[in-house]
Structure formats: C-alpha cells, structure tokens
C-alpha cells in the first residue's frame, strides 16, 4: 500500500511537472478557480470567455483606454504575458481550497481569482492568505468575505449590502417623486447568496419604513414554485425583491405567468435576472424588470472601450457582457495592472501594488467612480447601477450620473 501511494504520488508529480514545464517561459501564471462542472457549470463556462478576453486585452496591443491594454504584455515586466490556469471547484469549498493549494504550490501562480460561490471564496482566500498570494474575489458578493481581516483579499466589485442599499435608495427616490411603494416582497433561495441578500434587504426595509408583505425562502432548484408564487400573488407587494439563480428565475417567471400574476414591480438581485439564458427563455415576461448590476452597456456611449471590449467578448461567448462576466473580466485587468506596477511576481509586492491601486472609473469598463481598496480589501467606490429591461434591451435607470432614461414604473402599468 505504501509503495502504491508513493508510486501514485510520483505519477501525479510528474504529471504536474510536465504541466508546469509546458507553461514555462516568460509567462506569468494566474490561477482561476470557478465551477466548471456541476449545476453551476454555466457560470464557469461564461467566466472562461470573460477571463480569456481579459488576457487578450493584456497580452496583445489594443486601442483601449484601459490599463495594460495599449502595449502587448506587461511593460513593467519586460513585456511578459499572462496566462490563466483554470481549476474546477464544483461548488465545494474543500475542493476549491485543494485546487488553490495545487495552483500555488505546483503551478506557482502569482495570484488567484475566483470563485462565484462565496463559500468557496471563503476557503480559497484563507489558503491564499496562508501562502501570501493575492486573491481577487471577482464575483463572490457575500459581505462576510472582506470582514475577516485578510491581508491578501481584494474585491474590486460591490458586495451584497452595497447592491441592496442602491436598490432601497432607488425606491426612496421614486417614493419622493410620488410613486406608491409601501410594501416589498422578499423571495430568495436558501443558499448563501439568497440568505445574505435577504438579511440585508429585511434590515433595510425595516430601517426605511417598508412593510415586508411576504418573505419567502425557497429551496434552490425546486421542481415547482407554484405554491411559493401563490403566496406572492396573495400578498401582491408593490415591489418584489427576488434573489435567484438562473434555473429558479426561469421557473419563477413561468409560474407567475401561468398563475396569471403580473407583479407590480420586480427589483432583482441580478444573478438569474442578468443571465442571457433567462432572457432567451422568459424575456417576454420580464419586460420592465429592474435588476441591480455591476455593468451597463449604455456606458459604451460615453466610453468607447466598453463597446469594444463587449464586442471582443461577444465574439467568443456569443452574448453580451453581463453582471458576472464584466466583473470577472475586470478582476484580471485589475490584477494585471497591479503586477505591471509591482514589476515583480512576488506575492507581497503584488499585494502592495493592489493595495495602492487607484484607477479612475474612466479607465475601467465598469460604471464605478474608481477602484481603490479599503484596508479590508473592498472597493467601496464600486457603485452598483440599476438596469431596466425594456423592449429586449437593458437601459440604465439609476444612479442619476449613469442613467440614460427615467424608469418605467410600475413595470406592468
């Protein structure tokens, strides 16, 4: 048994050896940990396109007003190119951690990005901290992640509290304009995303005087949501605040339609409500829906780079950038910029460069004020936007500085 284990580990090591050898040269390796198989494999498939688009931007010369885009490779490291190493965590925190340790110790990645699931980000970032390798949470939005005092954790995008806060400020603004918004309905799935999101929303609703007319926690990937929708229909809140992934979003909208229920307004926590698959399936039922987002294609009118990057992404993925893919793409750009400035692949130096990041919003594809990290590694200036889905397109309706139209309210009015 002992001999077998040794033999086995030898095989694995030589496997790993050839792996690393093939990637030698002047390449800087970045680990990318996403769910590539399992129920959320679609997220990983999209992420791959987004991340590879970002690599294209960094490694080749593009006329884009983004850091590291103009010249080929990283100027700070003699034109070195970046290369991504993908790993699959299947939504399991243990597997995510094992993959992080593999990427760090075997592939010698200089930094890691991930991971969609906040639970996986929690273990991956802990391992990165222990090995002194920066971790960028691209699309994990649980607020708890940046509150653990980690030195090597960075999140350029907003977390759930910021997203929900924007939604309630938007409702406050509408209320001031005389719209009737007294009751809200919470509808959220029972994993970490839905729980985090609804906890914040419940608190904000209480603080700001909105009555929670219905508060439904449902099991993700249910065969049916009829009974749940019936409860929403009976309560008929002025605004429905759903936090759902794609499959449940499709089912929710179909079921509402089947039960003849047209919600007054939907103000969604992105996820399923920003996925192309949802709009392909039930887009006609979502007309007038508003979703929070980290990204707005409308910005292309003001910033040419947004449109160009979107075209590059579309050529690969056959869909527009959305809430998730824009954040994934941006995380590589943020990281590449930091490595470029650090002029080193040393974890501590890249960390210092990341901590010193101060990129104005105009030099990103995001509708943010800027990218600047707090000591906790959170970018507090990642202003969320609210997009309304009208006539098959997203229109930015909030905040004022990014909005290009007044919201249609109520959506089914």
């Amino acid at each position: 048994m002992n001999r077998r284990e040794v033999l086995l580990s030898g095989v694995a090591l030589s496997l790993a050896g050839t792996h690393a050898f093939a990637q030698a040269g002047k390449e800087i390796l970045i680990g990318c940990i996403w769910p590539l198989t399992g129920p959320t494999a679609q997220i990983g498939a999209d992420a791959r396109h987004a991340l590879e688009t970002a690599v294209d931007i960094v490694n080749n010369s593009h006329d884009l007003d983004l850091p590291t885009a103009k010249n080929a490779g990283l100027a700070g490291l003699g034109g070195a190119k970046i290369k991504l190493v993908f790993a699959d965590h299947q939504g399991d925190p243990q597997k995510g951690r094992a993959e992080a340790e593999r990427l760090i110790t075997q592939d010698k990645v200089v930094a890691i990005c991930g991971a969609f699931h906040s639970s996986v980000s929690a273990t991956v970032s802990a391992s990165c901290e222990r090995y002194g390798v920066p971790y960028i949470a691209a699309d994990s939005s649980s607020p708890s992640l940046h509150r653990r005092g980690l030195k090597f954790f960075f999140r350029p995008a907003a977390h759930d509290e910021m997203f929900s806060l924007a939604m309630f400020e938007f409702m406050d603004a509408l209320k001031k304009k005389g719209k009737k918004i007294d009751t809200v309905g919470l509808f959220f799935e029972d994993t970490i995303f839905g729980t985090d999101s609804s906890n914040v929303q419940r608190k904000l609703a209480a603080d700001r005087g909105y009555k929670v007319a219905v508060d439904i926690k449902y099991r993700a990937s249910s065969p049916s949501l009829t009974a749940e929708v019936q409860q929403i229909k009976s309560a008929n809140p002025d605004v429905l605040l759903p936090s759902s992934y794609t499959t449940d979003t499709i089912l929710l909208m179909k079921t509402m339609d089947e039960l003849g229920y047209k919600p007054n307004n939907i103000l969604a926590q992105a996820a399923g409500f920003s996925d192309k698959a949802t709009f392909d399936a039930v887009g006609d039922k979502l007309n007038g829906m508003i979703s929070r987002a980290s990204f707005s294609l409308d910005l292309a009118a003001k910033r040419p780079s947004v449109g160009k990057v979107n075209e590059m992404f579309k050529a690969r993925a056959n869909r527009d950038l959305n809430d998730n893919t824009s954040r994934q793409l941006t995380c590589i750009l943020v990281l590449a910029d930091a490595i470029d400035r650090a002029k080193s692949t040393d974890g501590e130096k890249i960390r210092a460069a990341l901590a010193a990041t101060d990129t104005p919003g105009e030099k990103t594809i995001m509708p943010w004020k800027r990218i600047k990290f707090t000591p906790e590694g959170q970018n507090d200036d990642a202003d969320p936007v609210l997009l309304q889905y009208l006539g098959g397109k997203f229109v930015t309706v909030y905040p004022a500085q990014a909005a290009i139209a007044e919201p249609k309210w109520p959506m089914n009015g």
Partner: protein
Amino acid sequence: MTQSSAAASSMSAFVASRRRQLITAFVVFALIALVPRLVTDVYMMNVLILTLLFAALSQSWNLLGGYCGQVSLGHALYFGIGAYATSILYVKFGITPWGGLLAGGIIAALIALALGYPCFRLKGHYFSIATIVIAEIGLLLFHNWDYAGAALGIQWPFTPDSWWTLQFARDKAPYFYFALGLFAVTWLVTFSIVESKWGYWWRAVKDSADAAESLGVTIFHSKMAAAAISAFFTAVGGGFYAAFVSYIDPDSVMHFRFSLLMALPAVLGGVGSLWGPAIGALILIPLAELTRSYLGGAGSGLDLVIYGGLIMIVSLTRPEGILSMIKPAVKREATA
C-alpha cells in the same frame, strides 16, 4: 487425531492467523506513517489525507453496510452532525475540537440508535431509500437553522498552528497523522468486532435468513450496536473534516455525495472485508481528485465520464471488489 485435539489445532491456527493479520496491519500503518517524509507536495498530501479519511469513513460504513448488509446511503447525516458539533462547540464556545469530536460522535451514535429502531424493520432498497431521505431532511433542517449559520455556514477563526485547536496553516502532516490514526482505529475496531460473536451472527444473517429468525432479538441488538459504532466514527471523521477545511456549510458536509463517497470505497474495494474500504478509497479518491484537477480544468465534463465509467466498470467486472482481484486469499482469510 481425536476430536478435541483437532479443535485445539484449528484454534491455535486461528490465533496464529489473527496475530499475522495484526502484525501485517501494524506494518502497513507504520509504512504509511513514513509517507509524509517522502511526499512534500501540499496537493498530494491533501489527496492522501482525503484518501485516509475516506478509508476510515468507509471502514465505519462497512461495519453496518458490509458486515450487517444494511446498505445505508445516508451516512452524510452523521458526517454532518460531527462537523457541526465540532464547529459549533469550537467557534461559539471555544471548546477544543477534541471535545467536539467526542460530543459529535456521541450525538451521532444516539441518533443512529433512535433511527435504527424503526429503520431496521425495512428491507433492501426500502432501507437504503429511507436513509437517503433521513439525511436529506437533516440537510434541509441545517439549511434553515439560523443558530448553526444556516446557509452561511460556520467559519473557523485564524489561529496559530496547534494540536489543541487542530489548526495548521500550511503543514499538512498533522492532518495526515490524524487521518491515519482514525483509519487505524476504525480498522482495529472492525478487526476486533468481526471475530467476536457479533461478527458470527452478522455472517449468519447474511448467509441464511432462517438463522436470523432463530437468533431474533439478539441480532437486532448487535445491529443497533453496529449502527451506533458506525455513526460514532463517521461523526468523528466529519469533525476532523471541519477542522481540516476550517469552513463548513450544509452542502459541503451533509450533501448526498458524502453518503456515496462512504459507501463506494467499500463496495469497490470489497464489501465486508477488512482491507476493502482502504483499497477502494486508495483508488477512488485519488482518481476523483486527479481527474478533476488535471482534466476538470477544461470544464468539458470528461472527468465525470472517466470517474463514472470506472465506477461502473469496476462494479460490473469485480462484484466482489478489487481486493478479490489483487489477492483472492485476503478476503477468504478475513471472512473465514
């Protein structure tokens, strides 16, 4: 040769065989203990720790599933209970994980006794599906239990390396020794029970239903004991897993896949045999980890094809388990 001397010589042959097995086992454990000196790669250590852990878990499962023939597909419940008991006691009350391991094990054993009472009346697939359903109820309850963190789970705080808190930042060797220790203990427990009167009864039940009828109540009690012991060690494994990963949530410790991962090694290696679970784990866990790591990165699903295909082929071509292929004598000896 008289009757009594024949009995005496077979008795001494039996004792000699037992001793031989025990010595073999200690040699194997000692050799495994040397592995951390040879393997320094963190990733490989991680794979080996999981292999030992699942060898231990599958060994525990084997007591109930293999020897008693009660195919439980719900051991994730006990695994999760161990993980939660250890995490809650440590994170919320500052009690050392060692205490949590013990507490989790005892709670799991009690629950196994409470569930065993109605469940052992169920036969075959009815029993298996009932265990799946019970574990699924547990998963749903933990998903909705706010005190235990519900879906947010429980994060272990960052602390300096220590055996007292079972936290080691980069060093994997301590976890390796713990997992090895757990495996050795479950092996020894199995070894001593199998040749006790309980072991004889269980085999009698598996071989002949009539024998089971005549033994009646006694069998029932011995099965209950097997369920409790099996649940105890499964929970200890769960508590260790929580300390090892330093983060748990319902899906990452109580998911159905853990139930399967505890049964599969025993089935593939050789059900109801002393070394079957270890052999099964030694093949299954590295296979799952390596296919994911070196093929899964492509996201094509091919890793699942290989993993699933292999499980299928092995269980079809080697119904007695891989062990029977490697060394036919081992199984006979173990169950003789």
